[in-house]
């Protein structure tokens, strides 16, 4: 489903060129549960952004469901992000002035879905994630774990094929982190392809497949 071949990505910092990804080859099948691990600065986030079409490689090819992604225009990529890809971030990235329900609704607004359908899907999803009674609360009235659940609801509301989570528990305590992982694994069991960056070896062990990155390369894959 995801197929990366010889992907390279360099950043220019001042006069220096930093290679964030070096010749990365990676195949991920539909419905897989992949944990991406490795030291800080090894290119994990860059890899996730690449898969999530937020970034373009300098060279190499990327096929998503057999389609070439590198040749797509910006707006075509935006449409794919809208429909096929969900993002979950370490820092939640909820819009502070909007209620939980409105945050979850956002991707559907961008996609032009009508409001009746939106309301129904938001209600169902928040309920399923155990935050139905928090729909009208704003992010600053929610706990960290609740915020991340809202963020996950927003990521999956468009029923994407791939869920990309960059240290989703990095900002949470053990208990609420565990609850978040439970939700993500549930989603994976019901068919979504889950790719999760984590520093926590415990969490890594729960994944079906572990990728270890060092210095922009995939060092091990098991």
């Amino acid at each position, binding site marked *: 489903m995801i197929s990366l071949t010889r992907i390279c990505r360099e950043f220019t910092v001042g006069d220096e060129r930093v290679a964030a990804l070096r010749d990365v080859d990676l195949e991920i099948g539909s419905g897989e549960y992949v944990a991406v691990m490795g030291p800080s600065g090894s290119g994990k986030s860059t890899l996730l*952004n690449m898969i*999530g079409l*937020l*970034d373009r490689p300098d060279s190499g090819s990327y096929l998503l469901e057999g389609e070439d992604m590198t040749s797509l225009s*910006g*707006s075509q990529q*935006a*449409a*794919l*992000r*809208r*429909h096929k890809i969900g*993002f979950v*971030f370490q*820092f939640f*990235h909820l*819009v502070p*002035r*909007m209620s939980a329900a*409105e945050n979850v609704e*956002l*991707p559907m*607004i*961008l*996609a*032009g879905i*009508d*409001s009746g359908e939106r309301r129904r899907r938001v209600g169902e999803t928040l309920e399923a994630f155990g935050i139905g009674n928090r729909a009208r609360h704003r992010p600053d009235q929610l706990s960290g774990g609740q915020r991340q659940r809202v963020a996950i609801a*927003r*990521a999956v509301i*468009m029923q994407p094929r791939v869920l990309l989570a960059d240290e989703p528990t990095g900002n949470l305590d053990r208990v609420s982190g565990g609850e978040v992982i439970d939700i993500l694994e549930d989603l994976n069991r019901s068919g979504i392809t889950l790719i999760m960056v984590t520093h926590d070896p415990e969490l890594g062990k729960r994944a079906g497949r572990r990728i270890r990155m060092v210095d922009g390369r995939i060092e091990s894959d098991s």
Partner: protein
Amino acid sequence: MRQRDLIRLSLGSLVDQRMRSFLTILGIAVGIASVVLLTSIGEGVRRFMLSEFTQFGTNLIGINPGKTSTVGVSGAIINNVRPLSIADEEALRQIPGVIDTVSVVQGNAPVEWRQRSRRTNILGTGPAASTVWQIRVARGRFLPADDQRAARALVVLGSKVASELFREVSPLGQVVRIGGERYRVVGVMESKGQMLGFDLDDAVYIPTARAMGLFNQESLMEIDLLYQAGLQSKTVADQARRMLIARHGAEDFTITTQEEMLDVLGSVLDIVTLAVGGLGAISLLVGGVGIMTIMTIAVTERTPEVGLLRAIGAGRGQILQLFIGEAVVLAAIGGFCGLVAGAGGAWLLGALVPELPTHTPWEYALYAEILAAAIGLLAGVLPARHAAGLDPIEALRAE
């Protein structure tokens, strides 16, 4: 993205920054309000002036002795200019299309009745003055159609003169003294009010020939021609000009058509309205700069939000729409408030100060509203383009 959702999202972020939005809206509202208020005053004054000038009817041509190069009323009689005579007036009346003529001689003299005396305007006019100038007689009748050269000593009083001299007594049939001569009162005019500072009620009307004698004048000061509605003023004026040149041997008179006067007046007033509107437009511009500033700040503050929106599938176009939408909503609300405040202010001013007529030209108000939206659009474009151009990854990291 749907239109309704776009407006809802814009309103949401504007409500979130209430104070800031309010001040920005105030900026635009003040601009629009001043445009509307100032043009309302300009238009009101314009209408007032026009109605002042047309209250004597529009199908009028005035002829004055002497030649002036600019349009205006020349009262001065230059030495080698032949006087305008009653014979001239009678000749002019024969021009086809001319319904009536009025000769005018004007001066100042005391009007006395018993012990009371009042210094007032004496208008020597022909019998047609009442119909040509559209001033109605309240009591009695206007000057009768006597032989103009041997008119009887009759007088018609302006309403103010009548009430000042006679108080409760009916003036009809009474004899007043004007410049030492005795005149019998045959009528009292309706109150007509002021016309550009000249109080028509503080005047009396006597036959032209008698006024010429009274003031020792050789020439009429003016001859007014009333022509049939539907005729070109120019046609009539040309005929009058040819006839008088034939009689005088030279063009030693000035013909002013009502149309010319209105044209000149109208273009002057247009400039006034325009200048006044321009002043308001400057304050609108300031409001526009305010919107631009606020939107620039908003984009900087909400950079992470832009990154997030890109990550969940917003295209550059949608980001552009969102921020421009906010600017336009700000400007449109400001425009609407300004419109209400400006029109309301104009109305209130008109009600409180009746001497200052106001009139809100609605098409100007519409232009002002469109202008406000356009300013919002323009002011929003730059910051919105900046937001749309942000790199999503960088934007997400900016926390």
